[in-house]
């Protein structure tokens, strides 16, 4: 299988702190690749590097064979790399529907139009309706995003990402803070999206059961570095990983 996204010796310094150090990673097109590691391991920072929010201190990001390290985040989004956030990051005083519709609109060619009502562009509204329903927020489209309970905000977070129909989805702990009974539903939705259109998914997740079940490949990060990499079986059997991470989790 072809490599769609590659981190090439990425490093990110924050003052004296090295949040990401010499991280290289190859994500296969169509795979679900998980990134695990304890708090502060540098997972979110890696996502910020891949999505262009931070520029790496050194190293490169390669997408479909092309160096995108210098591209601004909005350009990277248009290239087909979308992300969701660990800490919910929506448009609080806009409706649920409008949150999703804007994301669909962003990918179209009508953004500079000043002279027609946005509601007249049916394709974005239709897509937004579809996504709102798909993520399980049907009937809540007219609510302001700020009044949603936490679990619904997580669904909206994912809905905003899905509406832009990216090729590669960077999911930063999509189930963070969700009630545990809602987790399978959300994972099923992610599986569905993946099957529907052969998306590539990079997933940061703390729930080991979820990770071991759904991943094609796992990268373990520890203090900014890659500690181990492989299939779930390989990673689960890795001594270092057991000691550094899984061990303490299952203790």
């Amino acid at each position: 299988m072809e490599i769609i996204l590659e981190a090439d010796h990425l490093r990110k310094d924050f003052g004296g702190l090295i949040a990401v150090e010499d991280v290289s990673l190859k994500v296969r097109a169509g795979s679900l690749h998980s990134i695990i590691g304890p708090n502060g391991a540098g997972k979110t920072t890696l996502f910020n590097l891949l999505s262009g929010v931070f520029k790496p201190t050194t190293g490169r990001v390669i997408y479909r064979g092309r160096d995108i390290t210098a591209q601004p985040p909005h350009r990277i989004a248009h290239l087909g790399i979308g992300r969701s956030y660990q800490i919910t990051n929506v448009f609080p005083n806009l409706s649920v529907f409008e949150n999703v519709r804007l994301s669909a609109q962003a990918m179209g060619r009508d953004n500079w139009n000043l002279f027609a009502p946005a509601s007249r562009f049916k394709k974005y509204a239709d897509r937004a309706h579809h996504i709102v329903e798909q993520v399980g927020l049907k009937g809540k489209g007219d609510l302001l995003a700020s009044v949603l309970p936490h679990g619904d905000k997580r669904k909206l977070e994912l809905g905003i990402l899905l509406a832009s129909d990216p090729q590669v989805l960077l999911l930063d702990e999509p189930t963070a803070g969700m009630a545990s009974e809602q987790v399978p539903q959300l994972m099923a939705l992610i599986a569905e999206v993946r099957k529907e259109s052969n998306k590539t998914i990079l997933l940061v997740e703390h729930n080991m059961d979820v990770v071991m079940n759904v991943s094609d490949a796992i990268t373990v990060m520890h203090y900014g570095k890659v500690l181990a990499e492989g299939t779930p079986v390989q990673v689960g059997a890795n001594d270092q990983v057991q000691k550094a991470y899984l061990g303490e989790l299952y203790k």
Partner: protein
Amino acid sequence: MTKSIRDHLPYLLLLAALVVLPFAISFLTGEPLNKGIALFSQGLMIQVFILAVFALSYDILMGHTGILSFGHALFFGTGAYALGILVKYAHWSLPVAILAIIVIAALESFVIGILSLRVHGVYFAMVTLAFATVAFILVEATDFKQWTGAEDGLHGIPVPDAINPAIHRTEFYFLALAFAVAIFLLVKLFVDSPSGRVWAAIRENEARATSIGFNTLAFKVQATIISGIIAALAGALNAMWNLSATPQTMEVGTTINALLMTIIGGSGTIIGPMLGAGVLQLLGYFLNLWLGSIWQLVFGLIYILLVLFVPYGIVGTWRVKQLDWRAAWRARFARVSK
């Protein structure tokens, strides 16, 4: 999203009242339109219309895009001085001068936007304040007295008789009213357009707007240009009304006025800042009339009370309350029907 007449009714009533107003006052006072209170009250309202448009232009940035500017007077002053210089000294006809003002304001706001919108929040406000201060110093400088009149301002702008406010006050009243209505409709169109929705996204969460693919700097520049053009047109009309352009149009106080009108009326509501202009202007006039020089103190107190008890401005708070009332009514109805 079709709307019924009921949704437009308050606007239509307000417009009807403003159309009838000069005649009603003339009728009530028994004076002709071009004399006494009837004449004077039209002048007061003309200033309201001009400031309403200026406040609305300010709110495109503050309420709709979430950009705080302390330099908005720069565009108002640009419109005023450009009109004066082009009509009085370059002898351009009024329509051509106004087209030129649109181009000048677009270029000016483009350059300032590109240079200063890279910084955010209060830093942007400071940069715009710096630009406006430079412009204020330039128009007051004796070096350009020949064109600007320095501290005295540029006086004696020739305006065609047909719309000269000194001669045809009522015609000018309707010109200013038509201008305010046209800009209101235009801004409403812009705010609901795809671009206007991007502005709202930027206001709500600029980082996320970038992350879903919007080049937010470009859209903020777009909003700044539109806001700048409208402010300059208001400034041009102000120069036509006064037949002069003065340094006061460039002052930071002019920006603060727009800010107050927006906050009092309700930012992000379109009609709010326009009503705010009316409230501020008329309140200022009558307080001054009744109280003399302490009026500003009283106005300050009223302002504090408004901010405390009408937190989203007149229109914003009204809309919030309306939602509350509707919810309360529905809850009551639900109980009764059980």
